[in-house]
């Protein structure tokens, strides 16, 4: 699903966020991405979401060469992704319902379908009763769950999450992780960047650790290296 081949990302000023990174994530995998802040986690996610382009190397997602995409290609490519942002990235002057509906509206779905699917997604994150609220009226954890509902509402091929449980209490974190696991069970590829080593350790998924823009371990099926 995701193939990095000698991918480097250098920013202006010479800082190299990723150095000749090669990695492979198969379709249907559930992978955690860890590392200290500044290790390159966010850069890696930004490359996959085509917010940034690699400075060198090849990056393919679902068979698509990201480097050679034009603006229109990027738009259609992103519709296959479900992205959960660390800072939620919600539309603050729209209701919870409108926020979750946004990926479906962008794709031109029928209003009746939108309503049904948004309600299903909100039900999964336990926010159905707050669909008319504005994000500002919700707690940080609730906003995070709105972001998650928005990421999964289209049943994407690939879910990317940057610290999705950062603001959630342990019980809620487990619920959210099991939600991601449910999607993974039906074949969705999941890539989660997280600091929460305790949580990662409890779940028996593959862990990729980044350090100064390089991959330090990529064991398959192990419980991670930071236990």
């Amino acid at each position, binding site marked *: 699903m995701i193939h990095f081949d000698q991918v480097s990302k250098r920013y202006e000023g010479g800082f190299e966020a990723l150095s000749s990174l090669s990695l492979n994530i198969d379709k249907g995998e559930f992978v955690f991405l860890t590392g200290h802040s500044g290790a390159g986690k966010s850069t890696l996610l930004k490359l996959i979401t*085509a*917010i940034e382009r690699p400075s060198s190397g090849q990056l393919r997602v679902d*068979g698509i060469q990201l480097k*050679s995409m034009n603006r229109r290609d990027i738009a*259609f490519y992103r519709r296959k992704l479900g992205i959960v942002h660390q800072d939620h*990235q919600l*539309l603050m002057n729209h209701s919870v319902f409108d926020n979750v509906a946004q990926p479906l509206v962008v794709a031109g*779905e029928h209003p009746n379908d939108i309503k049904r699917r948004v309600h299903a997604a909100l039900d999964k994150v336990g926010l159905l009763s707050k669909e008319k609220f504005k994000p500002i009226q919700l707690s940080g954890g609730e906003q995070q769950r709105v972001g998650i509902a*928005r990421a999964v509402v289209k049943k994407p091929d690939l879910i990317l999450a940057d610290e999705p449980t950062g603001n959630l209490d342990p019980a809620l974190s487990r619920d959210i992780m099991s939600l991601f696991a449910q999607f993974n069970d039906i074949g969705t590829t999941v890539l989660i960047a997280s600091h929460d080593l305790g949580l990662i350790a409890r779940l028996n998924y593959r862990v990729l650790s980044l350090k100064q823009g390089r991959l330090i371990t990529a064991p398959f099926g192990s419980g991670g290296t930071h236990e």
Partner: protein
Amino acid sequence: MSKKRAASNRRRNRAPKFDFKGWYRHHWLCAKEAAIGLIKQPISSALTWLVIAIALLLPTLFYIGLQAINQQTQSWQDGGQITLYLNDSTTEQEGIALTSELSERPEIANVTYISKTQAWASFRSVLSLTSALELDGNPLPASIVIVPIEQTMVDLEGLILTLTDLPDVEDIQIDLAWIERLNNVLALIQSIVQLLSLILGVAVLLIVGNTIRLSIESRKAEIQIIKLLGATDAYVRRPFLYLGFWYGLSGGLAAWLLLTLISTNFQGQLETFLGSYGLTAPAIWLTVNEFGILLLSSILVSLLGARIALWRHLKDTDPQ
């Protein structure tokens, strides 16, 4: 290699089949939301409409004024004439023969022969002379009045040279200079009006462009979010283009409203004023066609302003 890759990308990342209903729905939604957004901020919207309306009203008034002047001067255009005063020795037969000869020339529209007797009669009637002034015989010469087709000196240079060289002609009086000056003044006014219209059109473009730019700036975070959710550029632009459309339409209507106000207040006054000079006042009004052109140009200029603002401000949401 890269060509092959691009082709494979296209295959894998094919845009979904064009969904006309979804597209239409989004157009309708954008049009509606842009209109509601404008109505929700009535004061700032009305100010923008008023600015657009004034910028449109001025060229419209110039246009109406220019139309009126053109119409008025059209009837003066034929006043240009050349008068040939004939030698005293030229007989009436020779004069009439010369007149019919001149009427054959293509650059002459109309020729009239005025005999010595006619000139004398006309002179007497104009001055209401009875017998107070008794002269020995008729001192007035016979003359030929020529109305040429072309009314500028440059066009008539050849004709005037020929006429001056005629043996029977004693003197030639050319009464064309004022028409030429009038035409020059009219052409100048027309150029000024066109220039001012252009400047004011650019002003509308900038006003709408700037208003849309502010709107884009205030929604930049939102734009970035929906682009991450897979919105195409066209989708992102649509609400702002509709905003431009509404600004154009309502600005055009406001201009028409102002014109109506001016018309109801000043039409009577203008008629009285011009009437005292024996002139007919123009109607401060637009025909249906002219009104259509006003609205259409207002909308087009506003859309262009919005499009330029979008073009300038959507670039930084591209991948780096």
